[in-house]
């Protein structure tokens, strides 16, 4: 009895509610003017389409990036004008990224900048001062890496930086300390299987990076969109404002680790050997950095850093190559 009554009451209430809703919908349709639309929020500094870094004019491709550095000094390793200036300062000043997950990022819990690049630089500080904390980090964006070296704001830059012939015109690089290659990151439900499927689609990369140029010159002709930081690309992808992100697999893995709804697709379609940037007038520092890299390749430190920061089994480190 009670249940029947309740059922009837419920049915009645449902009917009333439905008719009210219908009435509401009807009135809204009639009375509201079309709502004005506003442009969606975007990361500050987004460029669509991106400005492509000057590649055409005076572009250099006829150099050997894997044999562009200088051999560690044979005599007293820590002598030289740049090294003694750093020693008297008491700390190494380096430029790193604070937004590239796994390679150089600020850990929100501790407030410290950590990552693979950061740990490699700490090894240089250790060889110079016997203290991995005798180091000062300056967070810089991709586009600021070369200017920061040129105006001597920092001694070294380790920021997922590919050794290229163009860059070798302006700065020196250490021997290769990491081998990366450009791939593509898309939403899980995307049908794209590589850069070839992204013709006419928007693809994001950081301003001033080699990736943005590779996107612009890809045969499938995607539309390059640039932002100041790599994480800005992830924001754009999550908000559906770009179809894909394309850059070094290392950076993409860091982005994918922050969002389970994206996937890496396609093979590496570029070679991106990473080096530590040094001022061209600091050969003593360059040789010293290469000496540290020789040490960590041979004593297992490189592998330990790889395993700790990238949380994967370490491959063998890239071999050193020098021009002298």
């Amino acid at each position: 009895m009670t249940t029947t009554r309740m059922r009837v009451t419920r049915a009645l209430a449902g009917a009333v509610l439905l008719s009210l809703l219908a009435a509401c919908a009807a009135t809204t349709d009639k009375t509201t003017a079309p709502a004005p639309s506003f442009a969606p929020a975007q990361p500050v500094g987004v460029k669509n389409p991106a400005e492509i870094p000057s590649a055409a004019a005076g572009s250099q491709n006829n150099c050997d990036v894997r044999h562009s550095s200088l051999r560690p000094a044979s005599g007293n390793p820590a002598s030289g004008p740049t090294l003694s200036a750093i020693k008297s300062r008491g700390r190494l000043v380096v430029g790193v990224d604070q937004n590239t997950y796994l390679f150089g990022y600020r850990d929100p819990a501790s407030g410290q900048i950590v990552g693979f690049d950061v740990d490699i630089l700490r090894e240089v500080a250790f060889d110079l001062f016997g203290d991995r904390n005798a180091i000062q980090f300056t967070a810089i964006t991709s586009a600021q890496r070369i200017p920061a070296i040129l105006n001597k704001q920092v001694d070294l830059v380790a920021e997922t930086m590919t050794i290229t012939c163009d860059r070798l015109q302006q700065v020196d690089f250490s021997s290769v300390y990491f081998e990366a290659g450009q791939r593509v990151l898309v939403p899980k439900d995307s049908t794209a299987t590589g850069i070839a499927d992204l013709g006419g689609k928007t693809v994001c990369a950081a301003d001033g990076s080699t990736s943005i140029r590779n996107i612009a010159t890809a045969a499938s002709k995607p539309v390059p969109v640039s932002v100041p930081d790599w994480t800005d690309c992830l924001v754009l992808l999550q908000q559906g404002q770009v179809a894909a992100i394309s850059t070094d697999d290392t950076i993409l893995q860091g982005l994918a680790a922050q969002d389970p709804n994206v996937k890496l697709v396609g093979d590496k379609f570029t070679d991106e050997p990473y080096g530590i940037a040094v001022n061209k007038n600091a050969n003593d520092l360059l040789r010293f950095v290469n000496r540290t890299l020789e040490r960590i390749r041979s004593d297992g430190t490189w592998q330990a850093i790889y395993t700790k920061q990238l949380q994967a089994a370490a491959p063998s480190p890239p071999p050193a190559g020098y021009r002298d």
Partner: protein
Amino acid sequence: MAQLTAPAHVAPPVRRGEVNRVTARIRSTPGRLVVVMLVLLLVGLLAGTAWVIGSAQRSSAAGGARTGGGRLAVQAQELYRALSDADATAAIAFLSSGVEPADLRNRYQSDISAATAALAAVANGGASDKAAIQQISAQLPVYTGLVETARSYNRQGYPVGSAYLREASGLMRGQLLPAAQRLYDRETTGLQEERDDAASLPWLALLLGIGLIAGLIRAQLRLSQQTNRTFNAGLLAATLVAVVVVLWNGIGWAVVAAHLGAANRDGSRQVELLAKARIAALNARGDEALTLVARGSGASFEQDYAVQLGTLVSGDKRSGLLDRARAAATDGAVRASVDAAISDVNAWLAVHKKLRAADDGGDFPGAVKLAIGAETDSAATIFNRLDGVLAEAIRATSAVSDTRGAEAAGAFGGQTGGGVLLTIVLLAGIGVGYQQRIAEYR
């Protein structure tokens, strides 16, 4: 006249006799008296109407009927302040390691509810910039959504959180704050225009009144020549009433203009300077925090910080907003507040310099401590004191502006009712005065 003569050309001659009769009656002495009476009654009615309607309009303008006595401007300013403070607070909360402190979370929440309340008040109060209200209503939820996304990523330790915060701040600074600024500018201008309307000279009522007095005097001189009586009681009363009307109008105008001048000088003009100063300080605070959050890409925020503080206090001690507010201050307590604000700005600049040196020197935790720490010499402490001092000075000067505006509206008191009454007496005087003379000819 043209209308009278034009049909006369085409009209049959039978009518011409009637027209002549009318002209003859007007030319006769009693006819003339009726015409003069009608003219005087008409001018009297016009003068009275101009006065009554004009004073009613200007009284409501002085009271700020359209802008709610500047309350809309105050709400629009509160909207801007709350939005700007939310932006700065969200950035500062992001600087603290781990989970944000509860007091910053609360401050952000109360900023958002204050902004929403002010937005509703401005919208319901009939603010003129509907497009700005629509834009803020549409984009404020987007902003808060981005801030919450940034928060949840930050709690998980993912750096994409700070990218969301930068996007949120870009939306706030690029879209929401400019819209709130437009709203505030429109309402401030609206109040000023209303007050200018109220303080304008009621020239129509005054001209008609003076014309009426002249006409009444002339009519009485004519009458005393034509008759043996020196005075006509009705017309004399009407003349006196007309004089009262003109004086009341003129003196009333002078009093209202004085009150509104005081409202601007002691109130709204200072409110405007202080409100601008407070907003510049808030923007600078956001810049300071965002320089630390953005790191690497923070140079533009640091430049903006210098620009904002430069508008507050300038090197020549004259052209900065606070310098001008100090010069404009008419109240001792307000001047003391502005002095305190100026010394806080200088203290803040000094701490900021230390903070930047720490950050540029790689001591990020030290810089953050200087920016958000609770120490007495931290930028947070100094900024909060500065903001409090400015808020108090704005409150004090707004109150003066409101009081003087209300006094101005009060100075119109009785003008409408008195105007109706006096106009009736005036018209009655004219009518009675002439009726006696006209009756003598019958």
